[in-house]
């Protein structure tokens, strides 16, 4: 079996599972944020269960619209806090204690290899970076999990992405995943798992692996996953003392298909409006004028991403007429960015640094776009209206490409700046 199958077999108490089978699985952790949580709480109350199945396995995060940007948001936050108190749920990450939910889950040690984690957020697939089976569900289904701790899942078939080679200058995991999405398509992995393997995977940090797994949902995938290795185990051990089972893919595991990707052949990539699979090398769209640049989100708002951006921005000013919004993905990253002097670099370059939140990526607050505006973003979706006006255009790229483009005032290949 491959790792996804093994985790579902373990979670459903079976020796073996096969793609297509439906299993009743026991959930290890369940996460909801303030956009999906309140509906789940409403539904949970309708079920009539007096208590959640396990108060220590539920994580509640306030992240999409924090601090409250409206009275309506404040009310949603209050529903989350009240529920945590009523049910005595200790893992509530309130404003000031967390950040973007997926970053928080990983950083706070709630994601461990071999675990089945459901989250009421589509980017729950991010947790595969540490060898967990993370998958997104809706609010009503989350209410069912709150009540029973169980969920039915169809065992997915798995597409293997076999990565080899080394990264060219200015190329990052974001470019790799955009390239893969361009090849597989926006619905090419619907209902399926995506497993990243290959010699190159061991050279990619946990932060980069999170970027890879995070965007597998943009191909419709149920989960993105990487078998644990020394890199991910060292990370997990630094974040939690709790035990876990080490599960990886067998050497004779079965895959629906394998896409071999030589990273050395990948140049900086960009997903053009209005589809995540509308992917081209950046050099083909150079010169498109931009109004806004955004660095942040569960895809690319980590320290590694901010460090790359700062390298481009240090001692320079972003182009006139362009606004650059930088949103660290968590309080921890914000603090590290401060300690590394990155925030100073951003502010001096003319960038606007926001508090940890989903913010502009989600189009809820902190950097919405007007009609006719163009944004280049390190986030994950460029759908019509995603970041504000339906008449705005969004290009998705790596932090390096976003930072370089902010300096130029138009989309540029970051390699133009790296030679300085």
């Amino acid at each position: 079996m491959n790792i996804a199958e093994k985790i579902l077999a373990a979670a459903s108490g079976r020796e073996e599972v096969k793609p297509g089978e439906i299993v009743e699985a026991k959930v290890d952790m369940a996460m909801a944020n303030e956009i999906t949580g309140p509906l789940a709480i409403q539904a949970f109350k309708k079920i009539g269960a007096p208590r959640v199945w396990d108060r220590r396995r539920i994580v509640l995060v306030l992240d999409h619209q924090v601090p409250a940007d409206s009275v309506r948001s404040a009310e949603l936050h209050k529903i989350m806090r009240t529920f945590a108190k009523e049910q005595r749920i200790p893992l509530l990450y309130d404003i000031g204690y967390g950040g973007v939910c997926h970053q928080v889950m990983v950083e706070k040690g709630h994601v461990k290899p071999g675990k089945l984690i459901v989250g009421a957020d589509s980017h729950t697939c991010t947790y595969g970076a540490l060898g967990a089976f993370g998958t997104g569900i809706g609010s009503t289904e989350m209410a069912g999990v709150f009540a029973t701790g169980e969920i039915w899942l169809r065992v997915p078939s798995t597409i293997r992405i076999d990565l080899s080679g080394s990264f060219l200058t200015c190329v990052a995991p974001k470019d790799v995943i955009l390239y893969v999405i361009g090849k597989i398509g926006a619905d090419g992995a619907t209902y399926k798992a995506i497993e990243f393997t290959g010699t190159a995977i061991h050279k990619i940090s946990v932060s980069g692996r999170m970027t890879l797994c995070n965007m597998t949902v943009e191909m419709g995938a149920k989960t993105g996953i990487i078998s644990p290795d020394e890199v991910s185990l060292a990370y997990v051990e630094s974040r939690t003392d709790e035990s876990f089972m080490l599960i990886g893919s067998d050497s004779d595991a079965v895959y629906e298909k394998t896409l071999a990707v030589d990273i050395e052949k990948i140049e900086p990539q960009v997903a053009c409006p209005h589809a995540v699979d509308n992917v081209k090398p950046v050099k083909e769209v150079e010169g498109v004028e931009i109004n806004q640049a955004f660095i942040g989100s569960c895809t690319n708002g980590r320290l590694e991403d901010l460090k790359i951006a700062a390298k481009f921005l240090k001692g320079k000013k972003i182009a006139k007429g362009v606004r650059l919004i930088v949103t660290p993905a968590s309080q921890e990253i914000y603090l590290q960015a401060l300690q590394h002097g990155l925030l100073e670099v951003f502010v001096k370059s003319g960038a606007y640094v926001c508090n940890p939140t989903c913010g502009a990526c989600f189009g809820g607050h902190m950097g919405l776009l007007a009609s006719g505006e163009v944004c280049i973003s390190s986030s994950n979706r460029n759908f019509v209206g995603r970041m504000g006006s339906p008449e705005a255009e969004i290009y998705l790229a790596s932090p390096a490409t976003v930072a370089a483009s902010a300096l130029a005032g138009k989309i540029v290949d970051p390699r133009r700046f790296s030679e300085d």
Partner: protein
Amino acid sequence: MKVSGKAVVFGDNVNTDVIIPSKYLTLLDPVQIAQHAMEGLDPSFPEKAKNGVIIVAGRNFGCGSSREQAPIALKYAGVRCVLAESFARIFYRNAINIGLPVLESPHIRSEVDEGDVLTVTLEEGKVENETKGCVIAALKLPRFILEILEDGGLIEHLKKKGVKAP
């Protein structure tokens, strides 16, 4: 279970951000959410849908975020069923869980035009196009999914089964 209505036709990759834009996700009342259904593609949709319609769409309907507000918006705007060539998985599960019938029908778009009157028999996976006088095949739903739909959604279904926390 049979549902009928006039067809409203959309293309491929209709995502949840256009079904219900993020700015309305602070709303909790389904009726208020429904006032913005499909706003990203067609702001006149709630008006069109209010007397009951069936959405006909291409591939990957409901791709994007996990927001359950997307099927809620459609259901409360008057959508009685969504027929698509394929669905994104979280939307698909959410729709069933809130009691909005969804059926995969691989050739639906070539057999239906905007405004055609359709009748869908869920148990049989059968779509009758009354305007054109033809029958279109859809994939049958497994029994346990039909039961959730018949009960009106997962919550009612769980209540009926008497599920209580352990």
